[in-house]
Structure formats: structure tokens, C-alpha cells
């Protein structure tokens, strides 16, 4: 699937839109670090100095982390863009049935939780001292929800017998209209 086909006009100044990020390719640890550096610079250019800048980049980091840890293929698609006053971060990767189901369950369970329940689940997961088989802490989605609320969606579609395409998207209200900033 080509993510470009989903692209909606943002209404941003063309100069600003140029600084948004679309990436399709391998996701190694080195690529992840380079994307993080790049995003930090882009966020500074897009959003200027703001106290939550690294929190916003941190959300992207969590999605990239998950994709790298559970990706069953070679490539991922990653997109960071701003529509009006909303930052949208999207990642698409392939995953096994078990990992795809785990992603859906994580996102669906967030949807069912209150803010207090999210905080409680986060605390429980942080303090249980266990890491998953792939070295994750099971905190990524909870961490995002704790920071920006329930603005997380996940979509899973079959790709093969035991392989699925997972698309996760997070949206964060930036609190102002970039077009006027």
C-alpha cells in the first residue's frame, strides 16, 4: 500500500510542508536514531521552541520502537505531518498474527480505559520488573496514552497466511494553528 495515496492536503505553506517527514525503508537501530535526530530538527523548525517538543518526538520514538521490535518484514513506512493544529504520526509495518493481535488489543484496551485506569495500568506495567521476549517493557502505547490521551488508532489487515499489515496512528493537538503561527 502506498501511503502517499492517503495523503490529504494540509493547507500548510509549501515551505513548511517540505519539512514534514515521510520515510519508507529499513528500520534498523541506526535508522531509528537518524530519524529521531531528523524529527527533532523538523519539530524545532515546525513548532519552534516549546516545552513539549521532546514529548512529541518521544511519541514518534515509541511507534518506531514498536515497529522495529515487531516488524516481520524488511521495510516500514513512517510519516510525521501536521494538519492544522494536529500532529499526526503514522507507522506501518508487517507483523505476525500474534503481534498484530497484541497491538490491536493494546489500542482497544486503551480505548476502554479512563484516564485514571491508564495511569494505573502504566504504573502496574512499569513496576512489574519484567521485559518481554523482544526486550520491550509493554509501556509504549500506555506511555503515549498517558501523554496525549486516547488519540491512538490501529488498523490490521491480512497480508499473508500469518502476516498482517499494521498501521498505527497517533494524533496530538498542538494547541494552536500552525498556519497562523
Amino acid at each position: 500500500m502506498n501511503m502517499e495515496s492517503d495523503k490529504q492536503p494540509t493547507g500548510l505553506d509549501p515551505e513548511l510542508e517540505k519539512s514534514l517527514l515521510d520515510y519508507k525503508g529499513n528500520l534498523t537501530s541506526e535508522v531509528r536514531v537518524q530519524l529521531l535526530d531528523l524529527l527533532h530538527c523538523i519539530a524545532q523548525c515546525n513548532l519552534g521552541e516549546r516545552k513539549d517538543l521532546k514529548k512529541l518526538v518521544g511519541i514518534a520514538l515509541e511507534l518506531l520502537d514498536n515497529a522495529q521490535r515487531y516488524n516481520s518484514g524488511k521495510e516500514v513506512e513512517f510519516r510525521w505531518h501536521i494538519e492544522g493544529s494536529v500532529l499526526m504520526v503514522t507507522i506501518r509495518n508487517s507483523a505476525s498474527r500474534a503481534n498484530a493481535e497484541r497491538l490491536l488489543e493494546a489500542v482497544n484496551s486503551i480505548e476502554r480505559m479512563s484516564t485514571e485506569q491508564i495511569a494505573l495500568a502504566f504504573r502496574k506495567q512499569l513496576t512489574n520488573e519484567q521485559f518481554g521476549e523482544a526486550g520491550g517493557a509493554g509501556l509504549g502505547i500506555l506511555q503515549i496514552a498517558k501523554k496525549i490521551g486516547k488519540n491512538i488508532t490501529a488498523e490490521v489487515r491480512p497480508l499473508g497466511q500469518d502476516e498482517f499489515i499494521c498501521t498505527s496512528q497517533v494524533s496530538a493537538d498542538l494547541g494552536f494553528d500552525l498556519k497562523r503561527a
Partner: protein
Amino acid sequence: MGPLSIAATRNTPAILLDPTAKRFRMVGNSLPENAGEFYGPVIEQLKQALPNMGDGSTFEFCLPYFNSSSLKAIYLILVEIKKAMDSGKQFEVIWHIEADDDFMTEAAETFVEMCGIELTLREGLLENP
């Protein structure tokens, strides 16, 4: 026990544990793909070293970016330090923050809330040792 010294990489922080110098430091981004694998040996060595670390030891954390699996690892490190402090050790735990940065400040607040540990917030980043 000799000091533990791990050089920084693009994904992992520099870590120094030197009981003789009464010093523990973590400096740099912490983005390991497998935090359990990276931090497990550090936590084990810290557990062994803590009883031998004298009063006045300092534990410094300067982590501009870290992923949530590192968050758990740092939590586990702080829990061990807190246990030693609860047993009577006089340690100082310093958490470095950048000016106007919610990411590092809120992480400190999370640790204070979750571990009940007292952190000294210090503005300004450290260079890799």
C-alpha cells in the same frame, strides 16, 4: 569490585559505576532495542556494588531522550538505589534536565511518584564521560 565503564553509542548511554570514587553516571540517549539485555548486567552489578558504596555517593542521570523500555530499566535502577537509601545510606541522586523541557522533567516526576525517591533536579546537560 572494579569500576564498570560502558562507552556511549548512538543508541545507548555511557554508564560509569565506580564504587571507590562513590560515583554512578548515565549520560546520553537511551534507545536500546532490547532494554532488558542492555540494562540487565548493569542492574546486577549495581546491586552488588551498592552495599559497598559509601555515604556521599552520587548517582547522576542525564538522558536527553529515552524510550519506554529504558524508562522501566531506569526505574529498576532507582528502586535499587532507594532500597540502599532506605537502609541508611546517604546518597544524592541527581537528575539533569534541559531548560523548558517537559520530557526530562516529567520523567523525573514519574520516578519520584513511582519510587518515592528524592531527586535533585539540575539544569544543564552533562558531556559523555
